[in-house]
């Protein structure tokens, strides 16, 4: 059975990865032999300089999901490369490194720095960052998206994946801009903005005021967006948004995704990515498919 997939020149033995910000390689706890079964690992977004993140509370549970405003707490790219990345690399699982900048220059510097370490598979641009010129996110503006993807493509030796926000009118417009700029793949979707109000205090339940909604609650919207984007672009899509089970992941693949990422589910059921992989294989066997390509975008209308 051939489960292998490609994004640009990067090859992965199977389509299952984890969504940035929802998985950490914790030496004390992780079962390395099981971890190695995944197609790729995507560590949390790294920024140029260290960020301490948002005030608490940072997370709230909602029906079938959660809302978070972590604020990309991270140690900064240099400390990441000399620290956590070294540990991640020891696992021997392909790595997709997620980065985010405050400006185009920061994105370029991040790409430059990631040219040095050997053995990385791809760079993912978390474009859900403020677009300084306009009061919006980069991934809400096709021009800003184009410009940053293009700038990084010129510098980076790695395949470049643009990660998109669902908080837009028409996500296909942003996806097309990323493709035109030379992106090798699209990762979608990031979280939906949301607000939970504590009626006792009449304040937001989140320290940062608003946060991002994730989990099974957003899955149907995510599948729909992946389907729509797959109709408009030819580059591979990493589909995510509420994947808990293999059935959820299969929906994304049938809608047109090349890879799938398990996010919030990692918090609830840490073995979810492994179960997803197992379930995809089972489904293919049952349906007598021997190549993932036969499944991708096979939605019947």
């Amino acid at each position, binding site marked *: 059975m051939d489960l292998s997939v490609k994004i640009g020149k990067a090859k992965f033995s199977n389509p299952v990865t984890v969504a940035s910000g929802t998985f950490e390689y914790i030496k004390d706890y992780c079962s390395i032999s099981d971890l190695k079964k995944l197609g790729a690992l995507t560590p949390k977004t790294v920024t140029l300089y260290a960020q301490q993140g948002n005030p608490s509370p940072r997370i709230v549970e909602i029906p079938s999901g959660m809302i978070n405003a972590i604020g990309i707490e991270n140690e900064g790219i240099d400390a990441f490369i000399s620290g956590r990345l070294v540990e991640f690399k020891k696992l021997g699982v392909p790595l997709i490194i997620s980065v985010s900048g405050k400006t185009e220059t920061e994105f370029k510097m991040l790409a430059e720095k990631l040219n040095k370490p050997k053995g990385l598979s791809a760079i993912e641009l978390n474009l859900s960052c403020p677009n300084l010129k306009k009061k919006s996110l980069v991934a809400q503006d096709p021009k800003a998206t184009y410009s940053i993807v293009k700038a990084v493509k010129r510098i980076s030796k790695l395949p470049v994946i643009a990660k998109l926000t669902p908080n837009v009118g028409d996500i296909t417009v942003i996806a097309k801009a990323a493709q035109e700029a030379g992106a090798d793949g699209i990762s979608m979707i990031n979280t939906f903005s949301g607000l939970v109000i504590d009626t006792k205090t009449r304040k937001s339940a989140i320290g940062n005021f608003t946060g991002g909604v994730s989990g099974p609650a957003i899955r149907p919207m995510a599948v729909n967006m992946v389907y729509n984007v797959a109709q408009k672009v030819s580059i591979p899509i990493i589909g995510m948004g509420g994947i808990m089970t293999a059935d959820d992941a299969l929906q994304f693949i049938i809608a047109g995704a090349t890879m799938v990422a398990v996010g919030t589910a990692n918090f609830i059921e*840490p073995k979810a990515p492994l179960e997803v992989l197992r379930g995809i294989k089972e489904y293919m066997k049952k349906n007598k498919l021997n190549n993932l390509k036969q499944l991708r975008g096979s939605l019947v209308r």
Partner: protein
Amino acid sequence: MYSFMYKNQYKAKIVSNEKLTAKLYRMSLDAGKITEKVVPGQFIHIRINDTLKPFFRRPFSIYRAKNNIEILYEVVGDGTRMLSSKKNGEVVDVIGPLGKGFSLPSKKIKQVIMIGGGVGVAPFLALSDELKKIKCEQVLLYGGRTKEHIFNMKEYKANGCKVSITTDDGSVGIKGRVSKLYSKINTDPERTFIYTCGPKPMMASVKEFAQKHGIDGQVSCEEVMACGVGACKGCSIDTSKGYKTVCFDGPVFNIKDIKF
């Protein structure tokens, strides 16, 4: 063959789930050999149902780890209500023990004071068991809100622990806050060590008292958790050493480092 992402995730059979008071329950879980690895102050992360409700796992301090892993919990919302209706023989999915537990006091410490507010008393029985082994004098100051939070503390007493109780309404023990019991503390910083766990205002008052007398101590913190393993940074708190995760760097911290 099932794969597990974490070595310390398992299905645990409920051995007992006993109602202690109108609000408090005690659950005993068969965790096999894992029980031996527990350090007092660590917690377990329980998936209460294998459906999406409740969505998050729920963290509970390990109350005791003798033959089984036990928790002491208060019914406060949907998750704990569902937990309270579980029957013996049912199975829950558990990750843990997780986090950094208490460190035992140095040899020169003669008196250990445990100050617990409400169900915050939970991590102290496992600690009391360890203190007994090193023959350290132990005192438990327990502030329950009402008699609904007071249960018989014979296991503490069996460990030689001196237990004093307050309730807000005076229904059991002394009326008032647990701070009324601070007079029982030997304030020689060379000889005394404090452990505390409970509501933030209570722990803040313990910190103030400890600092006034130069007494060292540890606190066990609580924060809403998603992953429980240090992955999501959802439970980070601002400490004097920068942001730290309650689930991985804690839940036990030095009392000096926490800002209440």
